């Protein structure tokens, strides 16, 4: 059990979060490229790339957290019945 815990998604909620972050990066990079195609110096352009940065950093933080334990570990101890806390079978 201890081996399974370290380094990886254990709960469904975490697996879904990973998927969500990956999709957001793709989506936001695409958006930013489109928005800036019009005017690179516009406020919309810099906001769009700032969002990409925010999500990219969030993904990196998530990856780092995951190396130690599932980020939902302590939440799921309190709420094991929730959908997010279903065990994720790799």
């Amino acid at each position, binding site marked *: 059990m201890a081996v399974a815990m370290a380094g990886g998604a254990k709960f469904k909620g975490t697996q879904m979060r990973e998927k969500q972050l990956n999709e957001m990066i793709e989506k936001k990079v695409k958006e930013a*490229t489109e928005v800036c195609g019009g005017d690179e110096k516009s406020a919309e352009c810099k906001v769009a790339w700032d969002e990409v940065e925010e999500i990219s950093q969030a993904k990196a933080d998530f990856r780092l957290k995951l190396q130690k334990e599932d980020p939902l570990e302590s939440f799921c101890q309190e709420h094991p019945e929730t959908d997010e806390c279903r065990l994720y079978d790799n």
Partner: protein
Amino acid sequence: MAICTVYTTQLNPTCSSISKPSKSHLGFHQRQVVLYKRNSTNTYRPRSSGFSRPSYSIITCAADQTVVIGLAADSGCGKSTFMRRLTSVFGGAAEPPRGGNPDSNTLISDTTTVICLDDYHSLDRTGRKEKGVTALDPRANNFDLMYEQVKTIKEGVAVEKPIYNHVTGLLDPPELIKPPKILVIEGLHPMYDERVRDLLDFSIYLDISNEVKFAWKIQRDMAERGHSLESIKASIEARKPDFDAYIDPQKQYADAVIEVLPTQLIPDDNEGKVLRVKLIMKEGVQYFSPVYLFDEGSTISWIPCGRKLTCSYPGIKFTYGPDSYYGHEVSVLEMDGQFDRLDELIYVESHLSNISTKFYGEVTQQMLKHSDFPGSNNGTGLFQTIIGLKIRDLYEQIVASRSQTPVEAKA
């Protein structure tokens, strides 16, 4: 601090017996507040104790005031390597608060609480999009709230701090932050607002050069589907104007700047793997004595590799000397190159002075403890560790000075 003087002359020893700090099991310091009020008939009715001198003040015992450190960094919050090294020096690992919002940015250890300043965003992601401002823009941040809450925590009172959720881009319900011994506020704008700056006992700015930033972000993002060299580059460039306008100018206020540049030891190196790191330390900062090499105040150039120490390519080069930085006198210690072996590290440590270690080899020990952290073989890890020890030293000096009678402390 004027308030401190008032209570000093009127209450003196009684203060320490009334307002004794109570430690919760987590080691937080909470201060009891004693209020004395003067009523309309010119006699007073104290809330507690039979004290006979009229006054109106909120009394706090200076000995337990939280020490506040500011860290300006553009690398997200709380999980940064610097934070992990810093909290490790004080003992224990900093963890997210148990049982709270899993998306909290806060880290808590026995002695230290690290707050992410993104929690003070006044505009969430949608709001910023509507107004056309990035997170770097001061208009996206509530400095009034930041100031009030940091001040309140510093005075020993817990606060309900908002949580900014970096995944959803929304502001989540607040979490309770109890006053720790050491509060670190980390983020883009710890030194932007003058009132917040004045609350900081020590401040650090992490200054990453463009080339190194690019190399690091490539390492961070290239594995992500959706990213390419172009998108990584475009993101950095689009954020640069706001970064230069709002974040970079904070450098001048920092007590210590860690500047990370590409190496000069390898001609035309563009991999960004070998780093040249400068530790720029302001002179004249209370409780902070800059690190030096060999002879304080002189200019030194030092290559430790030679007869006593064999290094592999590209080796290690140190320089040290006085300089001027945005109009301030500073001392600059610089390391270019990489550590390959343990004995290189201990050799270097033994030649540095004013590193505030408690025993010989403490820097090396701390670096080894976290050898898996990025920067463990170069100046970033070395200087972050040393700054951590200097902050520990600063904290102990502050506590020692405050536990003497307040009159003496004021002098």
